[in-house]
């Protein structure tokens, strides 16, 4: 899909009629745009910004897919298996991109890879919403959808990860009684 066919921002004609899912879709546009604008402006800490964007993008992809698939299951959507397969295929593609990005050390190559990932995400989201998600527009209702913020779904999609890995401050030595 080209930029002409797909808007830079989410537009109301991409609405699937469910606020929580529309909000997720908007997030993908925003994060893809955030990556592209950082690449354009090329700030000093571009690599760190791109890595953060990619991490968040991965988390939100997992959370959003979980939200959609749970809703489809609750509604008894007949094309769930097909939809799930498309989600898995995209996750694999994104995962490959991220792995490749992590191996790159050259600054310009990193920019190119991140630009490509942002375009892939943007185009895939546009195409997926227009062709695949629209198929459930009249099938899924708001009551089928877990409307909690995306971070909660992302966390549940990532269940099994080490829950203490965030606790940087407990890792420093000498934190005993004074």
């Amino acid at each position: 899909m080209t930029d002409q066919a797909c808007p830079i921002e989410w537009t109301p004609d991409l609405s699937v009629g469910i606020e929580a899912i529309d909000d997720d879709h908007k997030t993908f546009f925003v994060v893809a745009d955030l990556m592209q604008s950082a690449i354009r402006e090329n700030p000093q800490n571009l690599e760190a910004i791109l890595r953060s964007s990619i991490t968040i993008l991965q988390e939100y992809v997992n959370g959003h897919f979980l939200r959609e698939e749970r809703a489809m299951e609750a509604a008894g959507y007949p094309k769930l298996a097909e939809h799930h397969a498309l989600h898995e295929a995209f996750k694999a593609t994104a995962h490959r991109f991220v792995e490749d990005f992590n191996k790159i050390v050259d600054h310009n190559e990193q920019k190119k890879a991140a630009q490509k990932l942002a375009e892939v995400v943007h185009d895939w989201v546009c195409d997926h919403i227009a062709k695949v998600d629209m198929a459930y527009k009249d099938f899924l209702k708001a009551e089928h959808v877990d409307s909690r913020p995306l971070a909660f779904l992302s966390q549940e999609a990532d269940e099994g990860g080490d829950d203490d890995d965030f606790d940087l401050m407990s890792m420093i030595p000498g934190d005993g009684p004074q």
Partner: protein
Amino acid sequence: MQDKVEIVFNILSAEYCLVLDPNPHYQRLVKEILRFGGPKNLEIEFAVDADHGLRLLREGSMHFIVMETKLPLEESIDFLMKIRKGRAKWNFDISLPIIGYADAFTPQEIYRLRDAGISELMIRPLSAATFFKCLKSASSRKFIETSGYCGPDRRRRLVMNYANKRRADDRAAELAEAAKAEEARLKAEADAKAALQAAAKAEEEKARKLEEAQAEAVRKKVQAEQLAREKAQAEAAVAAAAVAAAEMARNKAEAEAAAAKPDPSAMTQEELSRHLLKQKK
């Protein structure tokens, strides 16, 4: 499951947040994490340096702060200490969670930020999941205020053989807390006693008023009975007078009638005949 309930309570109830980072790309990243990952209607204010941050905090209370900890580092530490030690100075909650991030930290930097009162630290790349875990952890941490340290409870690990040992700095805080609790207990006792006294006084007043009302009712009843009695007596006297007057009138009429009756012995023959004829008629 309990874990998730806590997250919802702590994070989704937040309404205002300050993001302190001069980098617009990170401002936007943090905004997207918060907007799409956290509370739906969270209002986010952005500050580009410590002074700007303090100004925004003074203008409107925030529920938590997210900040770059290398503003540079000294500026970040100064910002943290001004907040944490400013109970007498600021009109906002100095114990609010403050989440910091940077590309990397040395152990020394972590110590300094921790002792300045940072709640949690994250290393970039930022992650929504890590961010919310930090916020959850920060929200549940007790706030300590002692002469040497103001900030979230720094104890994070279970230390073996810790029993019967305590942090020296905690002693003053514990004593202050105990004194505060005792003061609250005494005040509660005094309040309860005062409430009991007030209730007893009110009850007494109520009984007195009731008694007064009853006496007044009795007095009015007696008065009414007296009035009724007097009225009845007056009416009886009037009736007796009327009877006496009627009797007198009747007697008088009889006397007059008697006086008016002709004496046949004193009548002439002609008058007697007319009288008899009249009677006969």
